[in-house]
C-alpha cells in the first residue's frame, strides 16, 4: 500500500466531507481556521470594516461550493482563494483599485495610500505588543495589499510559493518578486523609522 502523507489524507477527508455537506466537519473547519481567515482578510483589507461580512460570505461559499474542493491542495489555500476573490469583489464595488494592479514602484506607493489605515484604525497597530512590533505595524499598514498578502501567506501561513501562486493566481516568479519587494519595503521603512528617532 503506497504511503500517503497525513496532510494529503486530511485534505482528502475534508474534500469528502465538504462534498457531502457534512455540517459537523464544516463547523470544525470554522473553529480551526477562523482566526487565520480573519487575519488574512485583515492583511488584505487593512481594516476591520467589512471583515466579518467577508468572513461569513467566505464560509457560506465553502458550504455552497464544497464539491469543488478536490483535496489536492491544502484546505487553507482554497479557503484563502475564496476569501481573496470576495475581497477583490468588495473592493471593486467600493471603487478601490485592484489588488493585482501592475507592480510598478511608483504606482504601488500611490495605491498604498488607498489602503493605509490611520494609526487609530490600523489592525496591525492594534495587534502590536511591543515597541518594535508597533514600528513594524506602521510599516505594514503602508504596504500595498499585494505585498502584505505575499508576506503573510509565506511567513505566517507557511505556504510554499506554488501554493501562494494558486491562491493569488499569479506566477511563482511574481510571488517571489513580491516577497522580496515586501521585505525590502519593510526594511527601508523600519530603518527609516529608527533613523527618525
Amino acid at each position, binding site marked *: 500500500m503506497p504511503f500517503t502523507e497525513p496532510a494529503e489524507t486530511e485534505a482528502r477527508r475534508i474534500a469528502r466531507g465538504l462534498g457531502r*455537506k457534512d*455540517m459537523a466537519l*464544516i*463547523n470544525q473547519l*470554522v*473553529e480551526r481556521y*477562523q*482566526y487565520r481567515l*480573519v*487575519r488574512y482578510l*485583515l492583511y488584505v483589507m487593512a481594516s476591520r470594516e467589512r471583515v*466579518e461580512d467577508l*468572513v*461569513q460570505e467566505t*464560509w*457560506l461559499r465553502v*458550504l*455552497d461550493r464544497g464539491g469543488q474542493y478536490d483535496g489536492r491542495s491544502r484546505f487553507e489555500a482554497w479557503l484563502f482563494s475564496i476569501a481573496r476573490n470576495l475581497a477583490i469583489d468588495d473592493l471593486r464595488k467600493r471603487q478601490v483599485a485592484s489588488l493585482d494592479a501592475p507592480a510598478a514602484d511608483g504606482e504601488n506607493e500611490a495605491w498604498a495610500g488607498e489602503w493605509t489605515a490611520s494609526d487609530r484604525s490600523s*489592525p*496591525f497597530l*492594534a*495587534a*502590536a*505588543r*511591543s515597541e*518594535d*512590533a508597533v514600528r*513594524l*505595524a506602521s510599516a*505594514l499598514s503602508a504596504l500595498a495589499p499585494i505585498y502584505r498578502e505575499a*508576506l*503573510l501567506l*509565506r*511567513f*505566517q501561513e507557511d505556504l*510554499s*510559493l506554488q501554493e501562494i501562486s494558486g491562491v493569488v493566481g499569479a506566477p511563482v516568479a511574481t510571488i*517571489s518578486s513580491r*516577497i*522580496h519587494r515586501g*521585505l*525590502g519595503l*519593510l*526594511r527601508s521603512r*523600519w*530603518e527609516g523609522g529608527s533613523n527618525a528617532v
Partner: protein
Amino acid sequence: MQSDPHARAQFLIDEALAAGIALDDERWLDGHIEGCAECSGYAELTAQIVRGLNALSFEADPAMTARVQDSLALRAQPRYRTAPAWRWAAIAAALLIALATPIYRNATARRRAAEMEREDTLLLERVKARVAQTLPEAMERLVRPGGDR
C-alpha cells in the same frame, strides 16, 4: 547573478526565506556573512522583521465564530423558499383562465341564444308582414259579401 558579493548575499538572504536556496549558495552565504558586518546586519534585520510578523497577534471576536456557524446551519436547512414571482404570476393566470372560461362560454352561449331568438323574432315578423300583405287579397275574394255566390 549579482557580481557584487553584497548584493548577491542580500538577495540570497531574502531568497532563503522566500523559497529556499541551494546548499552551495547557503555555504557561500554563511561564509560571506561571517566576514561582512553590513550583510550580517541585513540578515539580522530581515530575521527580526519576519519574527515581528509572526509576533503580531490579532483579536478575533469569539462570538463571530458562533454567528458564522448559525448562518451556515440556516443555509444548510432544506429550503422552503417562496416560489419566484413568475411562478405566482403563472398560477394566477391559470386560475383566471380556469374561472373565466366557463363564464365566457356561458356569456357566449347566451349571446348566441339571444341572437337566434332575435333572428327568429325578425323572421316571424317578416312572415307576419308578408302574410298580412298577401292574405287580405286572398281572403277578400272569400269574404266579399255576395262575391262568389
